[in-house]
């Protein structure tokens, strides 16, 4: 998943003002506003006590309790914990006295245009921590500076002679003032002209220390509400049946039996609005049943008699699309985009002593979130209240605004904890559905999808075919690399120009780019009506599976230890420039690779009866490697050990990072072992969660051994999907050692059992 996809239309000004919002008596509040050049510092404003309306990041009460707002939706990535801890550390707050609240969308009216009060608000794309590192530290630093100035006045000591520790200002003579006693006077201090200095890293108390999820107690007691757990007393429950074809139409509807169900009040039709990009309107034509409660609505839904008519896509199939990809990659057609072309691959090929070629297949994937699509909407004449599980509340706002015509600040979007996102909730078709229905019935609506619908009507991660060729000279050095890839872009029908459609499909800098002198990467566009969108780990899943399996195959062709082949390819420790900016630090990649190799006892690679596999990757300035050990017991694949090493630069919360790395590893293994979406006659063939079987406890390893490379000199990179790409190739490489079967097509279990 990729920031480039998720940012469309939401460009934030870099110019921001820090803001102090004097609250009720004895309260200090510090916030942030994006600002235009003409903005003067805003006057103190009185804000309500409703947590969801919290207009500031930091609020210190007279009794010393600190409330910190969590800006980005937490879909299980831990940002509701890590982002507030960044603020709290700069503030020198006592973490045991900090409460965290989800902020919801921060939007105000800037002459009819939205102004995003909290800056960037996107979760689950790997960008939360890097963005917070840039701007949220200043929130804590400003609040701390104000408290120090207030303490200086009260104590008659210069501010730079005071220090802060765990919610207390301490004078050189030992006098102490709690933050609570300073909150009111700090709220009256004039703002500094320049942002106050940030802490020296050696003074961090929370950053770099392990912390459990701030919502843990609420979650284990069933008290933390998700969007699906919100109600309005008079809201109607809406459930839908979608057309099996995104471009199909409703041919016949008989709602008599549905309307006869006690509690069912209305049956309505929904249609995608023509001209709207994917994710901004209804995903497919639908019929909605509105009822007093969920059970009545679901019963009514079952009693609908519907006939749908396919559209132009009614004959499409994933099998035919794959054949089309194979034909393109084996043919002589020019690529849709030449993504990278270093040196001259053809010339290198003519001089080569050895050539290896293989083709790899990544299936289509669904998001399969635990919390299904849902949305609670209340529309009043001059106000909309929306409670929604979203990863991008600003995009949800845009859909509500377009459909209601309300002003920027008349739309309130609450984002409670989100039951999984993985990219699905960067699109807001379900918000459009709920708003359309609320408008139609003139009542609040609580929209709910079933998990089967989530599978059948998704913006899928697109399947892809990767044809890789490598050539080597007589010294067995890789001199040329050619990647030819075909897929249906996740950016198609989203307002992205044709010559940029490849950007969601592969990374111009992905391994082994910059390491092989003659490197060519071509992308071929496929087309299908099946909607695509951002998917956790993509496009790296398919690409890393292909590239890292292929390096293993190259090693095999040269009868070499694949770790040696990897290390020879990486060469000496050095920094190589990347086309997207930044560098590839081969030293960091070598380090994670060697760490996992040592931990799994790679020296046993040749003689172990179990299979050992290894893989590495880099993305967004972070580095990852997996080593996996497997054994076969008959037709059962046992994943004995999984080791994962990551280097993300500075670590904010090591416990959270370990959870993300272990979680992403298991998610990627579940994908790789079992999962594929297919379509035939234009219809998705997986109708029920049973048809898309997430891995069970028995299939998954008992533990994931996570190694974090300390690297505090570099700013933190995002980690929410960092550990996904290398899991599948390390697994496939291990399976090859255990079985001598090379799996080039995922999902692995089906292919392995076919080939065994």
């Amino acid at each position, binding site marked *: 998943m990729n920031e480039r996809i998720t940012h469309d239309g939401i460009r934030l000004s870099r110019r921001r003002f820090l803001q102090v919002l004097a609250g009720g008596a004895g309260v200090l509040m510090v916030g942030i506003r994006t600002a235009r050049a003409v903005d003067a510092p805003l006057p103190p404003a009185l804000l309500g006590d409703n947590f969801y309306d919290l207009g500031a990041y930091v609020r210190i009460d007279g009794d010393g309790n600190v409330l910190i707002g969590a800006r980005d939706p937490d879909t299980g990535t831990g940002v509701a914990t890590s982002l507030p801890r960044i603020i709290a550390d700069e503030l020198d707050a006592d973490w045991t006295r900090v409460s965290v609240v989800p902020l919801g969308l921060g939007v105000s009216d800037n002459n009819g245009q939205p102004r995003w009060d909290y800056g960037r608000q996107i979760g689950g794309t790997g960008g939360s921590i890097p963005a917070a590192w840039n701007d949220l530290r200043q929130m804590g630093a400003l609040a701390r500076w104000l408290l120090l100035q207030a303490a200086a006045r009260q104590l008659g000591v210069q501010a730079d002679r005071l220090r802060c520790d765990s919610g207390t200002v301490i004078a050189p003579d030992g006098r102490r003032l709690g933050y609570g006693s300073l909150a009111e006077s700090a709220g009256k201090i004039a703002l500094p002209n320049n942002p106050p200095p940030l802490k020296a890293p050696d003074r961090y108390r929370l950053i770099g220390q392990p912390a459990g999820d701030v919502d843990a107690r609420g979650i284990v007691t069933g008290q*933390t509400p998700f969007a699906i757990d919100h109600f309005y007393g008079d809201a109607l429950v809406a459930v839908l049946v979608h057309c099996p074809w995104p471009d199909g139409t409703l041919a016949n509807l008989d709602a008599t039996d549905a309307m006869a169900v006690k509690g069912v009040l209305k049956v309505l039709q929904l249609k995608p609005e023509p001209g709207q990009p994917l994710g901004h309107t209804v995903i497919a034509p639908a019929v909605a049943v509105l009822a007093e409660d969920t059970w009545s609505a679901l019963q009514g839904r079952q009693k609908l008699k519907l006939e749908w008519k396919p559209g132009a896509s009614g004959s499409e199939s994933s099998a035919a699309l794959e054949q089309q990809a194979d034909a393109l990659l084996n043919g002589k057609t020019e690529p849709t985009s030449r993504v990278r072309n270093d040196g001259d691959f053809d010339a290198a090929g003519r001089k080569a002593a050895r050539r290896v070629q293989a083709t790899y297949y990544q299936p289509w994937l669904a998001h399969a979130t635990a919390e299904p699509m849902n949305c609670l909407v209340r529309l009043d004449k001059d106000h909309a209240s929306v409670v929604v599980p979203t990863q991008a509340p600003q995009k949800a706002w845009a859909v509500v605004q377009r459909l209601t015509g309300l002003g920027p600040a008349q739309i309130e979007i609450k984002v409670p904890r989100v*039951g999984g996102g993985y990219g699905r909730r960067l699109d807001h078709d379900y918000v459009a559905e709920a708003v359309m229905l609320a408008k139609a019935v003139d009542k609040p609506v609580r929209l709910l999808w079933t998990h089967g619908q989530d599978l059948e009507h998704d913006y899928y991660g697109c399947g892809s075919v990767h044809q890789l060729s490598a050539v080597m000279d007589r010294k067995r050095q890789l001199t040329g690399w050619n990647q030819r890839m075909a897929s249906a872009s996740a950016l198609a029908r989203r307002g992205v120009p044709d010559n940029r459609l490849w950007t969601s499909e592969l990374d111009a800098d992905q391994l082994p780019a910059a390491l092989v002198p003659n490197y060519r990467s071509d992308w071929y566009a496929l087309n299908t009506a099946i909607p695509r969108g951002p998917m956790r780990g993509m496009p790296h899943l398919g690409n890393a599976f292909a590239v890292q399996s292929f390096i293993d195959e190259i090693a095999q062709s040269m009868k070499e230890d694949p770790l040696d082949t990897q290390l020879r390819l990486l060469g000496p420790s050095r920094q190589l420039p990347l086309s997207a900016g930044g560098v590839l630090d081969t030293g960091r990649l070598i380090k994670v690779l060697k760490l996992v190799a040592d931990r799994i006892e790679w020296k046993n690679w040749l003689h172990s009866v179990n299979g050992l596999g290894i893989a590495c990757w880099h993305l967004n300035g972070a580095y990852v490697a997996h080593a996996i050990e497997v054994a076969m017991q008959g037709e059962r694949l046992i994943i004995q050990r999984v080791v994962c090493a990551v280097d993300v630069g500075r670590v904010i919360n090591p416990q959270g990072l370990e959870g993300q790395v272990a*979680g992403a590893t298991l998610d990627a293994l579940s994908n790789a072992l079992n999962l594929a979406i297919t379509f035939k006659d234009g219809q998705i063939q997986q109708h029920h969660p049973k048809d898309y079987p997430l891995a069970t406890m028995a299939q998954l390893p008992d533990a994931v051994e996570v190694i974090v490379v300390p690297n505090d000199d570099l700013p933190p990179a995002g980690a929410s999907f960092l550990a996904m790409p290398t899991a599948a190739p390390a697994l496939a490489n291990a399976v090859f050692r255990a079985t001598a079967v090379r799996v080039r097509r995922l999902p692995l279990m089906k292919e392995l059992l076919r080939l065994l």
Partner: protein
Amino acid sequence: MALAQDLVTPAAPGNGIVPEKVRDGIDLEINGEHYRHTGDPQMPLLWYLRDVLRLTGTKYARETGADLVLLNGKAVSAIAQPMVKLAGKSVITVEGLAANDGGLHPVQQAFIDEDAIGCGYCTPGWLIAAVDLLKRKPRPTDDDLDQLPNLCRCGCQTRVRRAIKRVAAGKVGPA
């Protein structure tokens, strides 16, 4: 019976006791409280909990096991239980695991200690399944843990495994 009923329905005794006929309905106990369901007897327990009682800890997501509750002490899917089958039975949901004084169940504390939480949506189901397993097998093996019916896309399984083993080893609570 009707005759007997008539005979025992005299005038109010005058001490505030109002005679009342037994109404139709399904009596059951949920988290120690008594409830009577008078709606559709086929309504699944899940929607009774969520829509009627607003006990929303039990989640809608049968395949992941997020809708598990303890029915007379045994983990069952709440969406698979029509209310009509629950007369006289006792249900414990995730909200009912903690003691009345707010003290957490050891399994809840172990999940906190091990941070065995992804997005948290399926967590209530894991807790219920773990309580059920530990009651049957106080020292579960890895193979026993492999039999848990729950699924988690966030990948919390390795941390759940640690949490349940922590309870079994009697090591619950911050060190």
